[in-house]
């Protein structure tokens, strides 16, 4: 006895234990990109779009290889691996059994060839063979699952692609889901009298599973009322539906009734029948109930918590999807832009929910689980509740909960919201800490996020960090995405006066920003100079004492048909005066007159009074004044 317990300590629990232990010692490197890009430093993504592109190419390369192997299995017969590795060998996609028999049908079902399987079944029936009930049920499952159509080849790749290609700006997971459903039902509908129904009616005997398969298929492909008809039929035949069929019916319930209360009555009726038949509800049952309740309008708020109470009373552990649906029921209106005033009132729900679930480890039990974190963070953002956001985030870091954040784009959106909130609410030290921690490794900020960061810098008087941030902006490829980010950087740098060192670094930064404008040598996307951008650049350069470079900027006004502001010309005059450069001063006045600025006369006067002018220069000035006077006339 003691011996075994002693030995069991040294036994490996499973073959993954060593690797899991080692893996738990590895921390995320905040300066590195995601692990999947480690192989090739050249292919390290620097921007969100590169990240998307590279992961897609990686995935598609993998799929292409698989496709080749599976299409030409005859080229991949040599098995080098010892012991044998089945997943590296080509999958047999072609049926081996060709004659008409049950084994052939079984193989076709296994290979998910819907049409050939139906053909085979028909031929078997014609030949007078009786197909076993179980096999027919399997066939029904197959037809109903794929809606009487052959599955698209490379099915695995498709969801990955759509998920990856998701636009990051798309904030609401609900909307996305809706889009999916729509596109799904668009080209896949339950056709009347399709093969599933035909085979179902041909069956000599039917059991619960046959009915269940058909009900599920009908609900999946939008034939909701038909599913309920079939259910009535089933009741007439004194058969009890299984829990999956009930789940499907509950999901379909809101579709077959008009009024909110009627919808709920139907759901409750289904649940009561489950109880009567002794069918034990599962987590998915209740999640479906909650999801259907969301379509019952104001009723949902009153009932979702009762559903949760029912789950608890029955000892069913809720998953994140459960909590997500509850949150949607309560915050849906608060988050919609039309009712901003109500945002404050429901803070407590998420608070008490976090009281309940913080520190728990969740498993993925429902496909809707992945919406929870995003939605919760979204709520925190709308409520501007930083403490709550930190609680949500700490839940994410418990165990393997991070997996439930979903695919990278959803992850990016989550961290974007979190960082946005941190920028708004925290002081700049904490903001920068988060920034350094999150930015290249977990998400790639968009221009909106960077603007938030700049505002946070401005609010805490840490404008001296702007040159650093600008480097990041450029690296993230945001410099040319929208001009206003560059403009904002310039405006912030030009606004106040700073110490000489900072002015110097600002001047360098301004020149770096300047490189983004105008027409680059390559066919890169560039921005057009605006008057304010040029003004700000010149101001920054003048403040740093780089007169020559500032004069170059002044030339750019003319080249780009922009007009400098009076204030800028005054500043130029000041700098010319401090250098007692009368030549420059006169040129400035001439330039001003060429822009036909109203301030020309004033500037000319200033120059006459403040500078020692040669005869020639005086004459030039008089000319300018004369022309400006004539312009006025």
């Amino acid at each position: 006895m003691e011996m075994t317990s002693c030995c069991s300590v040294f036994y490996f629990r499973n073959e993954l234990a060593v690797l899991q232990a080692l893996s738990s010692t590895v921390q995320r490197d905040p300066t590195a990109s995601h692990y999947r890009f480690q192989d090739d430093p050249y292919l390290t993504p620097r921007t969100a779009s590169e990240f998307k592109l590279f992961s897609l190419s990686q995935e598609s390369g993998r799929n292409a290889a698989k496709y080749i192997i599976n299409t030409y299995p005859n080229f991949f017969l040599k098995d080098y691996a010892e012991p044998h590795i089945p997943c590296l060998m080509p999958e047999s996609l072609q049926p081996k059994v060709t004659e008409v028999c049950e084994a052939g049908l079984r193989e076709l079902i296994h290979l998910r060839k819907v049409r050939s399987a139906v053909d085979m079944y028909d031929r078997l029936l014609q030949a007078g063979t009786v197909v076993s009930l179980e096999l027919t049920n399997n066939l029904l499952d197959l037809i109903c699952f794929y809606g009487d159509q052959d599955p698209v080849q490379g099915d695995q790749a498709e969801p990955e692609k759509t998920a990856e290609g998701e636009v990051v700006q798309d904030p609401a997971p609900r909307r996305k889901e809706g889009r999916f459903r729509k596109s799904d039902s668009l080209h896949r509908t339950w056709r009347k009298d399709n093969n599933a129904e035909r085979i179902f009616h041909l069956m000599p005997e039917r059991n619960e599973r046959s009915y269940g398969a058909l009900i599920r298929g009908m609900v999946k492909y939008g034939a909701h009322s038909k599913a309920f008809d079939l259910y009535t039929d089933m009741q007439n035949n004194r058969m009890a539906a299984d829990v999956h069929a009930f789940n499907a019916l509950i999901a379909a319930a809101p579709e077959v009734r008009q009024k909110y209360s009627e919808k709920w009555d139907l759901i409750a009726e289904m649940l009561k029948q489950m109880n009567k038949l002794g069918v034990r509800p599962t987590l998915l049952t209740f999640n479906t109930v909650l999801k259907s309740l969301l379509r019952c309008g104001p009723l949902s708020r009153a009932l979702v918590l009762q559903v949760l109470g029912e789950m608890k009373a029955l000892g069913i552990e809720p998953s994140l999807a459960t909590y997500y649906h509850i949150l949607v029921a309560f915050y849906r209106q608060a988050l919609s832009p039309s009712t901003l005033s109500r945002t404050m009132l429901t803070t407590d729900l998420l608070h008490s929910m976090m009281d309940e679930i913080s520190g728990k480890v969740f498993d993925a039990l429902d496909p809707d689980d992945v919406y929870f974190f995003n939605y919760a963070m979204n709520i925190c953002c709308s409520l501007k509740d930083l403490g709550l956001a930190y609680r949500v985030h700490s839940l994410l870091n418990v165990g393997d909960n991070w997996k439930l954040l979903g695919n990278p784009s959803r992850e990016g959106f989550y961290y974007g919201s979190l960082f946005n909130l941190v920028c708004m609410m925290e002081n700049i030290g904490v903001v920068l800490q988060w920034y350094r921690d999150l930015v290249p490794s977990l998400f790639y900020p968009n221009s909106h996020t960077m603007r938030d960061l700049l505002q946070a810098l401005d609010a805490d008087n840490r404008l001296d960090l702007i040159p650093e941030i600008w480097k990041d902006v450029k690296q993230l490829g945001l410099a040319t995405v929208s001009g206003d980010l560059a403009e904002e950087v310039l405006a912030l740098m030009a606004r106040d006066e700073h110490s000489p060192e900072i002015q110097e670094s600002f001047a360098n930064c301004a020149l770096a920003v300047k490189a983004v404008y105008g027409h680059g040598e390559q066919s890169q996307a560039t921005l057009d100079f605006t008057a304010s951008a040029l003004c700000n650049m010149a101001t920054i350069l003048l403040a740093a004492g780089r007169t020559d470079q500032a004069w170059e900027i002044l030339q750019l006004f003319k080249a780009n048909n922009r007009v400098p502001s009076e204030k800028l010309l005054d500043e130029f005059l000041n700098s010319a005066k401090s250098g007692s450069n009368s030549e420059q001063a006169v040129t400035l006045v001439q330039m001003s007159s060429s822009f036909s600025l109203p301030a020309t006369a004033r500037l000319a006067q200033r120059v006459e009074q403040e500078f020692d002018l040669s005869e020639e220069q005086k004459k030039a000035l008089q000319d300018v004044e004369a022309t400006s006077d004539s312009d006025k006339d």
Partner: protein
Amino acid sequence: MYRRALVTWCQGRSPVVFAQDVCLYYPKSNETANLRVSRTIVPGVCRTLTAGTPLFSKDPDELPSQDATQRRDTKEAERQEEGKPERPGKEKLLEILGQMKVEVVSKKPKVPQEEGRSRPHPAEMESTISMFQEATAGVSQQREKLSPKLVAAASAAAASLPDSARAESELLQQLRRHEAVTQAQKATDGSHIGNIIANMKVGRRPPLAQTGLRNPLDDEEDEHGGRRKAHSRGVATDEESGRRKKMQLGGKRLNIFTQVDAKAKEEVAAVPAPLTLSLWDVEFANTIGTVVNTLPRNGFEEMIEWTKEGKLWKYPIDNEAGLEEEAQVPFQEHIFLEKHLDEGFPKQGPVRHFMELVVSGLARNPYLTVAQKAEHIAWYREYFQSKEDLLREAGAC
């Protein structure tokens, strides 16, 4: 309870006022009363007088004189307890109080008068003290806690009432309760008025039970009402928890499903799950798999993935991995292959000799399975059987 305490306190006060009134109407008292007062006050006359009303003065130096007053007052009470109701006694007391007040109001002209009268009767004094000590030994212990001034005032007030003994004990009891509460308050948090209010039970509803039962719908619907309630409670609790309504998630249930008892649960557990997964189950698992983030975050996680896919040696490393079928075959099958020579081979001779060499070679070959070895031997058997004629000719058989 507290409110009552306050009320009694007020009651305790009113006689003082009353006494004042009395003394206003009857400024002069009779001899005895005056004597006593002057006698007790003597040591600190000036101070007592200057300090204003001695009942509420806080100067500890006055305590001796106050003790004396107290003793005297209680003595009066004792006398009444003993069933000797003295009409003059009560009057005397009132006079004392009145006198004191008057003294305060017009202290300067009175001072010489008081001094002139100050001569106690020692015998009377003794007797009163001993009486007091004997009769109220127990009471005094309790009283020690109370400020003597208060006790004096209380007994004075009680004396003015018809059933003075009972009234006094009631008053003192109340005062003690009051004292106890005050001490408790002090111990917790200084003299913070908020605490006192918080501890009051007046008009305070049990908040948790109520909010827990409240319909969440109403909660959200009457936003203002809800917030107001929270604020009104916020006086007692701290600000943060006042703002947050405690919401119990899932307190109420639908009551559709009947609770499964443990026995039924066991029965459910006993029914084995269907061995074959239907297509729906498989695809459901796939959906979840594609939805969650399964990208490996580091090399080890990638290795875990590979191990699961079967691309990597499994830990602990075992050089017999993948030879599960061979593991069924015991080693003697590999080593002792002579039994395969029993049939189809000559018992002796060069062929036999050759085959023994073959068998010993095969026994040392780790790369072939037992079936392959048997096959190998079977090939020779066939070969030699087909060449049997030749061998016989050569005499090798």
